[in-house]
Each structure stands twice: as C-alpha cells, then as structure tokens.
C-alpha cells in the first residue's frame, strides 16, 4: 500500500489539474467577430447600418460609420460596444475600442456573463474585401 501512495498522489494531482484546466478553458478567452459600434446605434431596433444612416442624415454625425460611432460616444453619452450578428456586448477597454470605431473586428477576450462585458485581450481589425 505504501508503494501505491506516490501513484495515488500523482493521480489526485493529475485529476485536479485536468479539472482545473478544463474549467479555465470553459471560462477562458473566446473570439468574437463583429463591428465596433456605439451603444446608441447598436441597441436600436433597426440594423446598425440603418441606425448609422439615420444619425448621419441628421447632419452632425459625419459621413461614415466610424464618424457616427465616434460622434455618438463623444457627443451623445454613448459607449463603444461590439455588435455581432445576434448580440451587443459592452467592452471594458474603451480606448482600444475607440481606435477601431466603425470597423469590423475580431475581439479576443473573456465574457463576463453577469454584466455582458467582454474583458478585452486583443482587438484585430478585419480587412475589408
């Protein structure tokens, strides 16, 4: 039995690391693909495109999605968010999002499901085809 003890300890440790590892992976980083938008345009019932168009038509929000996004954040109290096909996520590092305003991006980060905030690791702009 004494001879078995090191193997038992090793087995327990291995089990612990495997379980811990899978938990970390389950709660870990994911990649989200979408557009960096402003909360005002992204949360409307219309598509993001149509929301930007409505704002641009009003005359002060510039000419492009990027202009509109920045305008809505800087002048209208909005926040940078990531809009995917189905969801709108809040973003923790607003300064990183600002650099990619209006662009299609891949955001790698961890989602806090309670607050719906992505804790950003990296943001990578997707080149337009």
């Amino acid at each position, binding site marked *: 039995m004494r001879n078995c003890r090191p193997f038992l300890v090793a087995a327990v440790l291995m089990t612990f690391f495997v379980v811990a590892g899978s938990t970390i992976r389950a709660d870990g980083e994911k990649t989200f693909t979408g557009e960096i938008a402003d909360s*005002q345009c992204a949360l409307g019932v219309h598509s993001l495109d149509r929301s930007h168009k409505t704002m641009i038509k009003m005359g002060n929000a510039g000419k492009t999605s990027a202009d509109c996004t920045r305008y809505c954040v800087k002048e209208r109290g909005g926040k940078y968010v990531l809009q995917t096909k189905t969801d709108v996520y809040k973003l923790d590092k607003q300064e990183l999002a600002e650099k990619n305003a209006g662009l299609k991006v891949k955001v790698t980060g961890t989602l806090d499901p309670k607050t719906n905030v992505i804790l950003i690791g990296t943001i990578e702009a997707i080149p337009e085809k």
Partner: protein
Amino acid sequence: MIKTNLQLKLKCWIVFAVTLCCFSPQLCAQSQHRIIEILADRDSRYKIAGQKQPVITAKPGEELTLRITARKAQTQNRDGSVHGLTLLRAKDKKPVDGWDLLLKPGTHDFEMIAPAEPGEYVIVCTVICSPDHEMMNMRFVVEP
C-alpha cells in the same frame, strides 16, 4: 394625589404632541426628495410643465426624484426603451456617473443625485427615437 397624576400625564402628552407637530414637517422634508416631472414626448422633446425651454436647476449633491413619463416617438430600442436620459457635463460632454436612464413607455420614478460640481450640464436622449432625436436635449444647471 390622583388628580396630580392625571395632570402630569396630560402635560406629558401635550409636550409630546407639540414636539411631534414641530418636528414632523422637517422629518418629512428630509425623507422626501424634490420631485421633478418630465415628459419625454412623442415629438422627441423633453417637456416640463410651465417651461417653454425646459431647465432643471439643482443644488450640488441634491437628491431629486425624476418622475418621467415617456411616450414613443417613431422608433425604439430592442429592449423596448422609447427614449433615454443621460446627463453630460456641458464643457466636455463627459457623462455623469449614475445618470444613464433608458425610458420605457409610461410613468416611472428615478431617484437621482445632482452632480457635486456646480456648472452647466446637458441632458440628452440616447435612444434613436425619430429623425428629430438629436434635438432631444435639455439644460441642467447646478447652482453654486
């Protein structure tokens, strides 16, 4: 002896009643915030009864109850909000913490605290409610 006891009790009750009368209005005033009734209307305008150009004036850190009635203009948010109400510092458009409301149709009360820093502020709508959405603003002044 019995008469003296009764007189004493009566005096005590009178003193108690007078004290209550003196302090209860102050207690009520302390527990109730000033109520400001605002209409976030279907024409994408904030309105306050009796004011042509609505302005809210408050003291630094004053506790306010905003009683807001929201009516849908043309469009709304996915969560059903028909208007928004966010307070920005006028000089740099920096949002004030705790002042970011989404308004569903109907009348709702919001307990708010005025900014501590005196100055000019602006309330803006954050829901793209109609083509007139950008006109949906209101002054907010914190007096020194």
